[in-house]
């Protein structure tokens, strides 16, 4: 192989596209064993001289396990995707450029761009590795600016495993740990599917407090299915949602109206496209993500599995739920269906759904598992209405507000057409606030706000002012006693 001999001397980008295939695979096989540090990893490829020369050119490989070798390809396409996005956004200028480009220029551009992108993808993969220790997951990455993320396992709030459509075809998955303060960079994308499952089991076992020697082989905790949402119910539920229809109607009528007023096609398209996006998110997009929603229970906590094209999984360990919201859209009420959303600290808003649609009884059953000792009916019953004079503060909708307290949760409800009931366990309350505007003071009303650890706030609005001060005091007491009885961070200890 002559080209292999000349690679070490050649420019860096020309050597890269094939290398991951050639030299990295044997090394990757042993993902469980710790790699020797330094850049001599690929020496096992059977060509010591070439490999060593190559390794000298490359930056030192951080110690730890590697990501799946398919990862560079994702990054390779990033610049091309960026170009495509640019072309779509600034269509006119892109067309101008393209008309000036000749075939030769295009070829040159591709010859330069593609290897550069490939080199970037390969190098960013090369310098990324992860390591599981007794107390933390370490992710080392960064080509120019080194970055080591230490993710403490006892602070673990949830584990997400995502398998986008393309990744499913290749057999890889993304793994992300939700810890307060992590950002998008702190995910492992991609690892092999089997590896992801094994890694998840190991991380959860270590986070749960299982002895460190036993953790790697503890395996997946057994799970018991609680609910599975049938596609037919999801379809009906989404058809009964007002937002989807609203967006759809707007998508059809608003551009037509705008066109008839202004006579400009561009304006009509410009208004139509975002609405189409909204309609997509509210209807089909939601169907795709919420398809085949499965809630299961295991000693490691709640397991959520869902998605038609992109399969997503989340494990929420016990005692991590900061707040639960039960939403009841207007048209679901006849069927007595509800949607349950949950908030976990450090998690993004995307995966905050616990149950997209379920009969109230089923939802109450799941809720009792998520927040032990919480009875949905009781929580809904204790929410007492606000004083009648609140109608001067919030006309009509004042009737929707209510607040109550059970032994376990702070409950508030709001909304008249689309009802929402928010529950915050006393143990999760971070601070309690009372606010009162000038108009509310005239009416002798005040709002009580309860902040929880998922950066959310539950508000009991429009309470009588004396009652509000009493609520603040009592809630501060309850949160304190609630915290004493809370479960330990390491849930199996």
């Amino acid at each position, binding site marked *: 192989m002559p080209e292999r001999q000349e690679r070490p001397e050649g420019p860096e980008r020309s050597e890269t596209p094939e290398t991951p295939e050639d030299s990295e695979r044997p090394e990757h096989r042993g993902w469980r064993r710790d790699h020797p540090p330094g850049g001599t990893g690929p020496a096992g490829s059977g060509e010591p001289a070439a490999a060593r020369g190559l390794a000298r050119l490359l930056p030192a490989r951080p110690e730890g396990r590697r990501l799946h070798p398919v990862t560079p390809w994702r990054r390779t396409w990033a610049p091309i995707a960026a170009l495509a996005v640019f072309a779509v956004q600034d269509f006119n200028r892109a067309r101008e450029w393209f008309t000036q480009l000749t075939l030769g220029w295009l070829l040159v551009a591709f010859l330069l761009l593609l290897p550069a992108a490939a080199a970037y993808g390969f190098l960013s993969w090369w310098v990324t590795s992860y390591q599981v220790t007794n107390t933390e997951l370490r992710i080392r990455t960064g080509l120019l600016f080194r970055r080591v993320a230490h993710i403490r396992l006892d*602070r673990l*709030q949830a584990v997400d495993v995502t398998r986008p459509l393309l990744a499913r075809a290749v057999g890889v998955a993304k793994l992300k740990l939700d810890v*307060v303060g992590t950002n998008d960079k702190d995910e492992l994308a991609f690892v092999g599917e089997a590896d992801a499952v094994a890694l998840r089991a190991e991380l959860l076992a270590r986070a749960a407090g299982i002895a460190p020697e036993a953790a790697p082989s503890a395996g997946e905790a057994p799970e018991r299915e609680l609910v599975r949402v049938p596609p037919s119910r999801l379809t009906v539920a989404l058809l009964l949602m007002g937002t989807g229809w609203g967006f759809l109607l707007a998508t059809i009528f608003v551009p037509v109206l705008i066109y008839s007023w202004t006579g400009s096609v561009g304006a009509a398209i410009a208004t139509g496209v975002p609405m189409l996006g909204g309609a997509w998110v509210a209807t089909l997009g939601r169907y795709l993500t919420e398809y085949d929603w499965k809630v299961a229970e295991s000693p490691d906590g709640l397991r959520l599995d869902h998605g038609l094209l992109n399969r997503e999984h989340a494990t929420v360990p016990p005692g*991590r739920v*900061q707040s639960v919201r039960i939403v009841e859209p207007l048209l679901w009420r006849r069927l007595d269906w509800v949607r349950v959303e949950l908030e976990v*600290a450090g998690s993004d808003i995307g995966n905050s759904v616990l149950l997209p649609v379920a009969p109230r009884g089923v939802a109450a059953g799941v809720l009792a598992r998520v927040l032990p000792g919480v009875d949905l009916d009781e929580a809904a019953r204790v929410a007492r209405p606000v004083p009648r004079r609140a109608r001067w503060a919030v006309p009509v909708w004042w009737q929707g507000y209510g607040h109550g307290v059970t032994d376990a949760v702070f409950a508030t409800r709001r909304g008249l057409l689309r009802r929402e009931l928010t529950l915050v366990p006393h*143990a*999760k309350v*971070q*601070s*309690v*606030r*009372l*606010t*009162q*505007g*000038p108009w509310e*003071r005239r009416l002798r009303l*005040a709002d009580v*706000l309860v*902040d*929880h*650890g*998922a*950066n*959310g*706030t539950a508000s009991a609005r429009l309470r009588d*002012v*004396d009652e509000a*001060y009493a609520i*603040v*005091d009592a*809630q*501060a*007491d309850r*949160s*304190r006693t609630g*915290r004493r009885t*809370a479960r330990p*961070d390491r849930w199996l200890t």
Partner: protein
Amino acid sequence: METGSEGVPTERAPGVEAPPGGGPSPAAPARDDVEWRGVERALLRMRRTVLLLTVPPILLAQTVLLWVLVGPVWTVLMVPLVAVTVFGWFALGRNWRSWRYAERADDLLISRGVLWREMTVVPYGRMQLVEVTSGPLERRYGLARLQLHTAAAATDAAIPGLVPEEAERLRDRLTELGEARSAGL
């Protein structure tokens, strides 16, 4: 709602006159069971100085411009603005009187605001971080500001206008109590 009004001569509307200092004011009724402390008078002096140094020159310049460019009659337009500034002077006083805090056995209370009142209760065990800051202007007036952080970003608990010794005493005490009662998320 942030009710701090550094030099902004609006928002502080007439409220019920409160006794000066840290005594219980009507900003938080039915809270006589705890020992409230007010903030330093220097904070009021600082805010009023800022008000005096910023707003009147601007008003004067505007008046002169109106006089010269449009006509002397039009300077009448400035009267409401001057009135607002004078009102701001008194509003700052009321706002200063409304700032109070109290250390209870298990939590810290902070109460503030005249028109928009706000009271915050932060349990000691929930404090993640206590910081004392003091900018150049505050240092001139011998003041420091105490800021509390919990795991919830919405918790907006800060006490401006403390003497540095008091701020440090409070910080040390809160940190100590926080460690003793520590609870995470």
